[in-house]
């Protein structure tokens, strides 16, 4: 009970202390992610000052007047296809964190206070702009997206400061919270249980994963609708070589013809996909499909996921491969 009150006290104190990165206008922090809201379209937002701070990511306020790179990764496909412009103006509205579009619109000569402007342009993969701030101060960023076929105005207005100092006392409070929690876990013996549960889970997973010898085996789909057998044109399957597979698709012993197969894959341990985009290009015989464009570029544990749609009957097969 004591612990609960202690934690509560520390958390309240932590929240109270001034935090430099609050939500302002079009940019908000949601569950650890910095998100820019261009009307309802969203992007993952981050700012770098590589010359002085290397890989440090900022959400809005920047500590230095220096080369700053703004990055917007699209969480919404429409943004990727929209013509987006990016403007930074000196904040002459006097509203600081509370400045909104109406305040910006009221500025008589926008160009006179614009320190950076990038013309509308479609950036298919990611939006990046770079501006070197020559002086500290308060600024307002305005991002406008022109989505084809959509008459709505998509705009984000985010005030920010260049040249704030300090990160506040967050690290101290977090450490204190963690210390209290760990102390409790140690004292109550919960830490040991948690630790062995984790090891047990890992062991179980390893056992399951070890049962993989993809080539010879028949793989059953998740809901039990299909069986898939694979044959590789490359025997044994070596890395860094383009090759193809033949997939034999059965349902309860009968070949399944005319199915649509989509193949993706990756290495779960290494958090990346396949180096190519393989495709089933033809059905060479009833239930026999040619899968081309297969390549593996690393040794290790691979997962190939085949999504099957046979006239409305849908299921997924996961093939495990240890190279």
């Amino acid at each position, binding site marked *: 009970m004591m612990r609960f009150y202690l934690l509560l006290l520390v958390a309240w104190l932590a929240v109270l202390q001034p935090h430099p990165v609050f939500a302002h206008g079009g940019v908000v922090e949601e569950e650890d992610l910095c998100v820019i809201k261009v009307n309802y379209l969203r992007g993952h937002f981050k700012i770098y000052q590589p010359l002085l701070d290397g890989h440090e990511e900022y959400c809005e306020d920047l500590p230095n007047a220096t080369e700053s790179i703004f990055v917007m990764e699209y969480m919404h496909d429409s943004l990727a296809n929209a013509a987006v412009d990016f403007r930074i103006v000196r904040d002459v509205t006097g509203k600081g964190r509370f400045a909104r579009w109406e305040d910006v619109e009221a500025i008589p000569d926008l160009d006179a206070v614009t320190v950076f402007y990038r013309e509308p342009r479609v950036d298919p993969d*990611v939006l990046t702009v770079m501006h070197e701030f020559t002086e500290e101060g308060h600024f307002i960023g305005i991002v406008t997206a022109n989505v084809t076929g959509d008459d709505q105005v998509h705009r984000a207005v985010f005030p920010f400061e260049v040249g704030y100092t300090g990160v506040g006392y967050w690290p101290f409070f977090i450490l204190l919270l963690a210390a209290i929690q760990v102390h409790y876990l140690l004292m109550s013996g919960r830490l040991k249980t948690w630790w062995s549960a984790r090891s047990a889970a890992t062991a179980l997973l390893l056992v399951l994963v070890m049962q993989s010898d993809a080539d010879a085996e028949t793989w059953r789909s998740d809901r039990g609708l299909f069986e898939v057998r694979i044959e590789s044109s490359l025997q044994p399957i070596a890395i860094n070589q383009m090759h193809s597979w033949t997939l034999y698709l059965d349902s309860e012993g009968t070949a399944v013809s005319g199915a649509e197969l989509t193949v993706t894959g990756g290495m779960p341990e290494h958090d990346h996909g396949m180096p190519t985009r393989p495709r089933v290009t033809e059905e060479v015989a009833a239930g026999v499909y040619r899968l081309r464009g297969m390549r593996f570029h690393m*040794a290790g544990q691979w997962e190939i996921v085949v999504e099957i749609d046979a006239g409305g009957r849908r299921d997924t097969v996961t093939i495990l491969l240890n190279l």
Partner: protein
Amino acid sequence: MNKTGIWVILVTTVVLSAIASHQWPRVGSWTEAERAVLRSLWLGSLPDVPVDTSNSVAGDPVAAEFGHALFFSTRLSPSNAIACVTCHRPELNFTDGMQKGRGVGQSQRNTMSIVGSAHSPWQYWDGRRDSQWAQALSPIEDPAEHGGHREHVVEVIAADSDLRARYESVFGELPAMDNEANVDRVFSNVGKAIAAYERLIQPGRSRFDDFVEAVLDEDPHRQRALYSNDEIAGLRLFIGKAQCTQCHNGPLLTNNEFHNTGVLSFPGDLPDKGRAAGVREVLRDPFNCAGRFNDAAGATCDELEFARTGFEVLGAFRTPSLRNLSNTQPYMHKGQLFTLTDVLEHYNEAPLAMIGHNEAKPLGLTAQELAQLEAFLETLAAPLATAERWLSAPVPEER
């Protein structure tokens, strides 16, 4: 327990931990799996240079001589100042020692080594060309490099009796030059001759390869004679904890694939989109596998057809070979990292990528381990397997 007892226990624990954490090299005791990995990295496992069906003169020695002359010739640039060799210097493993290449103007990327590049399906950091011959054409028309154009190249060949004779002995009579299609054809042939020469530039046998043979022969004496303790420890890290073989695998120590490793942007430049932009460009290149200059009629172009696009290749760059590293600094796509120490620290840290996703994870290696890794990497250096005469300008024939 008395005080002495406690002290004995404490000191013993400290000493034992120190001994346990030191990297003792286990010379001579390589497991079956480790031997297999070493064999895969060994130069002896390098297959013959793959046949390039898109280039019918790739294996032609006369074409290679012609390509040799073209590679070293400054006449392909209108300024008569820039040749391929200006940036691809043989004494620096065919790189130029600069962060970004400099021809007539400032290029935007680090000059890649061409050694062993015949084995790669893609050329350039972003894979924007899919053959050596298509790549060879690109710098000629790049305003920052040769600053030239194909009409000029064709004129130079037509006007010079020696070059013209060499061209015609490989490709037949020079066609009429008033026709755009003919100019393109001659230009593509120039690239193919240069590629025939570049295919000859291959890495040579290094101390690492000797060491692998000693391991495969199960000869611990020779292993100890070839490698220091640190180098052995570095090799074990390379194929183990440091996870380098995820991308630096195969006899050239590269899988020639595209990876985002979270390299910081170059000062004054936006973060480089890498393969995401490169794959778009290669699909548009008229000299690609699917284009009409492919000498293999009706060829299948699996690499182009199944190339990966999108977020996964955003900020991703082609893995370079690790052979002859010491001659190829600075490192990374814009030469952002100057020394091997910088590179190893970068991988140890595995920072989040500015754009795209860094698949690497922090390694948690100690300073001693990083130094051992570096010591191992130095053992990959070796003279090229290419005959000397190809590594300098061709001697003009007596006429």
